[in-house]
């Protein structure tokens, strides 16, 4: 199908974008990579009257390392570019591991980091990564801006903390503590499809190999990425051995999610996948932390 008619502007400055969004908060839609929005327009599942194309904005697609070691990613950075970026590989290995699972190369050439986070598909990889890495998101509006933690940003099915008139402009990832390791695993019907279930894991060890902190975030098993905080907290203070990892994975799969089955995977199958993937991801993250 074809999109319904709309007006279109492609401002060349951030102020102009924020001005348009402030003037038309209810009927303007931001067009970033378009890899989720244009399918919605083609199917007429969305019929905005004004598209504000941000692709001609300069300076919002950068990758920079701040003086405190924080990785600063422009919201308009394309997923394909981040996949090949050496700073991302070095400072955000979890993001680097997740990116190849996002759709196909041709789609990552257009799709943006900010678009994926703002769209907030519960099966998307990047929201889960943002949550697992305790990302902070900078939201700009006419006359101001605010920072929101990832844990406060994702509100539910395709719902975020973005208010009408706001633009996500930057994502900040804190530097990984020493002796940290990460892993991202998912199962999809074909490579590049949205996940049936997936897991982002991060662990930090002390000098003796005892787990100081673990994060386990699950995707495609709830309305938003699920922080399996109880299972992860139980791992701190002890060794990351097979039994404790298996127990954490079992707890996450049985008590921290309430998946809804669909034609591709029943709720039971999703729980099974989470249990297996969580155990594998935690074990892989531990090995990488030991090698770090």
């Amino acid at each position, binding site marked *: *199908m*074809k*999109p*319904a*008619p*709309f*007006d*279109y502007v*492609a401002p060349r400055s951030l102020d102009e974008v924020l001005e348009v969004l402030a003037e038309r908060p209810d009927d303007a839609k931001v*067009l970033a990579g*378009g*890899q989720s929005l*244009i*399918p919605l*327009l*083609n*199917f007429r599942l969305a019929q905005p009257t004004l*598209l504000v*194309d941000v*692709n001609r904005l300069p300076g919002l697609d950068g990758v920079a390392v701040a003086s405190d070691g924080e990785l600063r990613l422009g919201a308009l950075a394309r997923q*394909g570019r981040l996949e090949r970026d050496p700073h991302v590989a070095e400072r955000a290995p979890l993001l680097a591991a997740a990116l190849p699972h996002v*759709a*196909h*190369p*041709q*789609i990552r*050439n*257009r799709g943006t980091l900010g678009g994926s986070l703002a769209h907030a598909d519960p099966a998307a990889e990047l929201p889960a990564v943002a949550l697992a890495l305790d990302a902070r998101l900078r939201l700009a509006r006419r006359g101001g801006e605010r920072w929101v933690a990832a844990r406060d940003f994702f509100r539910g099915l395709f719902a975020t903390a973005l208010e009408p008139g706001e633009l996500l402009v930057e994502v900040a990832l804190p530097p990984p503590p020493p002796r940290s390791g990460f892993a991202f695993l998912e199962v999809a019907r*074909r*490579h*590049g499809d949205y996940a049936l279930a997936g897991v982002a894991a991060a662990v930090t060890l002390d000098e003796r190999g005892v787990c100081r902190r673990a994060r386990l975030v699950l995707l495609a098993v709830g309305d938003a990425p699920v922080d399996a905080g109880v299972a992860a907290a139980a791992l701190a203070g002890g060794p990351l051995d097979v039994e404790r990892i298996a127990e954490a994975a079992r707890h996450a799969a049985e008590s921290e999610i309430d998946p809804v089955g669909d034609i591709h995977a029943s709720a039971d199958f999703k729980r099974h996948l989470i249990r297996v993937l969580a155990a594998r991801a935690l074990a892989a993250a531990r090995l990488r932390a030991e090698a770090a």
Partner: protein
Amino acid sequence: MSGARRLAVRAEINGRAVAREVEPRRLLSDFLRHDLGLTGTHVGCEHGVCGACTVLLDGEPVRSCLLLAVQADGHAVETVEALGGEQGALGPLQEAFRRAHALQCGFCTPGILTTITAFLREHAEPTEAEVRRALSGNLCRCTGYQHIVDAVLAAARSRRDG
């Protein structure tokens, strides 16, 4: 019916400067096919899944069904029509596909050729696994992919051998 203003698109399409006015909602795929008559670009699904509409935007493969024509303003687009040889002859990649029986109905072929053109520019000596990964965003209902992989590996070899 539409109150939307028509907007200018000035782009380089297959090396030629093109200037047109379009409705903002015009998809790049429809602009190429209907406004410019470049029907080599195929439209299968119109939501990014099949890959038949893949073209090169400033050298990078992208879905033309997920771009607005106005977004190509100021950019260079290459379609499958740019991949032929002199006077209607097949280009080297197309010739490799013909030799290896890498197409049957040919619906998927334009999107695969554009995708692989960009891939071979960056991968002079691809492995079979790399080729399969490069093809992962293009659906083919006919061939089972094996002959497509063979054709891409053969094209890479003959590029190296000059």
